[in-house]
């Protein structure tokens, strides 16, 4: 068959299947991320049907998907929100980082994946899915709850931590020397601080530069700027995703709002292809051997996120049921864990088992997170109540 025809047919079939999967996810009220991963596993190496033609396109689209994911993440926050969030939640943020980075890192060392593997797996288990968490909070009608700002400011801290973590990770994966690594990190930190300062004082200039009343011009401006900044950041070894995130933060106000609206469908499309592309590269046969570890890791890191949330909510003066709700809202891992694992796998610096473990882990956590958020309250109540009546027996 003509290669172009084959690519088009494969791509069409995959995107159409993703649509069906997303609809199924919506029907049962779940995040579509695990379904996209499963879709990728089914169509990739060692899957049910092997698709070859769309590989190249899927790879590039996946890259664009990551850039758009991070750009939209940056658009969600204003620089002022980031600063106040950081000031209010740094203690909980640091606890979150330590408690949730360690399980992944320790397991990677145990499995003999070395320092680079530990760095990657730590990131995979550390970062909550802000997408799933925000959706769960909205769906369960918890926007007005008192623990919600606590959860959101921890998510803000994590996202900022990503801006520092990703450049370090990119440098580590590229295998640069210790001194070279330090230089990259210094550049990254400097860029992050400069962008935050510029965004805080002169965000409206950046917004004005990309703004247009014409939605077509606006879309091309924003997308073009994002790819340019991401490319430039990538060339400086700062990680394309961080560049996009920083641009998102620098764009503010009404422009950010419009950009979110205009980019959302594009992000949904490319991010879905990104999850598929990640699944495509993973052989389903490599998952069963690591499934046990994935389960252990899932149980451990669900516990550590619960502890984080409970502690943070307690600091904020929230009563016991709210503390459990806060913990459970943080449990889900999703898009960014896959972004981190995707970067690592693409660099070739980590063993292939890592991709399998990360896939299995995210599959578990993306399903478990929303379930935990929904059922933790009745569960906590049934556990707390017997203790309260015990003295009378």
């Amino acid at each position, binding site marked *: 068959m003509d290669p172009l025809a084959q690519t088009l047919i494969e791509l069409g079939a995959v995107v159409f299947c993703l649509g069906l999967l997303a609809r199924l996810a919506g029907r049962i009220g779940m995040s579509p991320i695990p379904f996209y991963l499963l879709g990728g596993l089914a169509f990739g190496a060692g899957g049910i049907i092997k698709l070859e033609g769309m590989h190249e396109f899927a790879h590039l689209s996946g890259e664009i998907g990551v850039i758009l994911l991070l750009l939209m993440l940056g658009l969600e926050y204003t620089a002022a*929100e*980031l600063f106040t969030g950081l000031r209010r939640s740094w203690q909980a943020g640091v606890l979150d980082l330590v408690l949730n980075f360690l399980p992944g890192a320790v397991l990677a060392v145990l499995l003999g994946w070395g320092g680079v593997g530990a760095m990657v797996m730590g990131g995979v288990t550390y970062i909550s899915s*802000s997408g799933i968490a925000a959706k769960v909070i909205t769906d369960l*009608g918890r*926007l*007005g709850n008192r623990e919600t*700002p606590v959860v*959101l400011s921890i998510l*803000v801290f994590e996202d900022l931590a990503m801006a520092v973590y990703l450049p370090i990770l990119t440098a580590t994966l590229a295998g640069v020397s210790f001194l070279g690594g330090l230089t990259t990190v210094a550049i990254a930190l400097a860029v992050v601080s400069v962008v935050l300062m510029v965004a805080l004082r002169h965000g409206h200039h950046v917004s004005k530069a990309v703004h247009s009343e014409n939605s077509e011009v606006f879309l091309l401006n924003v997308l073009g700027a994002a790819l340019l900044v991401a490319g430039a950041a990538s060339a400086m070894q700062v990680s394309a995703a961080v560049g996009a995130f920083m641009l998102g933060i620098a764009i503010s106000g009404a422009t950010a709002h419009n950009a979110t609206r205009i980019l959302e469908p594009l992000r949904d499309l490319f991010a879905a292809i990104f999850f598929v592309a990640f699944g495509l590269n993973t052989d389903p046969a490599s998952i069963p051997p690591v499934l046990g570890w994935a389960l252990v890791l899932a149980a451990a890191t669900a516990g550590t996120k619960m502890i984080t949330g409970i502690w943070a909510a307690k600091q904020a003066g929230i009563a016991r049921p*709210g503390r459990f709700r806060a913990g459970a809202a943080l449990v889900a891992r999703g898009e960014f864990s896959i972004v981190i694992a995707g970067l690592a796998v693409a660099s070739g610096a980590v063993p292939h088992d890592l991709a399998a473990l990360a896939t299995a882990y995210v599959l578990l956590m993306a399903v478990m997170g929303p379930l935990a958020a929904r059922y933790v309250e009745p569960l906590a109540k049934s556990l707390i109540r017997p203790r309260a009546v015990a003295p009378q027996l």
Partner: protein
Amino acid sequence: MNVDETNLPGLGRRKDFMTASGRRIGVVELREGQTELIVSTWDDPDTCQASIPLTSDEAATLGNLLGGTHLAMKLAEEHKDVPGIVTRQFSIAADSPFQNQPMGKACIRTRCGVSIVAIMREGEVLPSPGPDVVLHPGDLLVAVGTQEGLDSAAHILRHG
């Protein structure tokens, strides 16, 4: 009244306060412009029993109802020494014959001796509105007059 304002990074703002009965009520203003009315549960003021999405029209109407009651109560208090004078509120329904018409067209004062002393609109008060004020659906009219006068004013506003 002390209203707490809390930032919800990435989502919007929450504004709420505790009532004397121990429940927390308020609104969540989302980035995209929607408003949610929130009411906490009895046993756990941290959580919400209801969060009700409101369109901007609905939010304005609710604001008018609450503000109008407040205003009407104050006026009724002031008139309580004058026998026969009553304060009442009328809302302009979406099918009212006077919506988007100047208020003077209804000739309320001429026909039933009732004075419209204020209009509540989008949470704000228009005091002593003139006959050229255009009525919008959702407006709440605060009227003062006799019992019979108010009854016929209600009829006029509803049926023309």
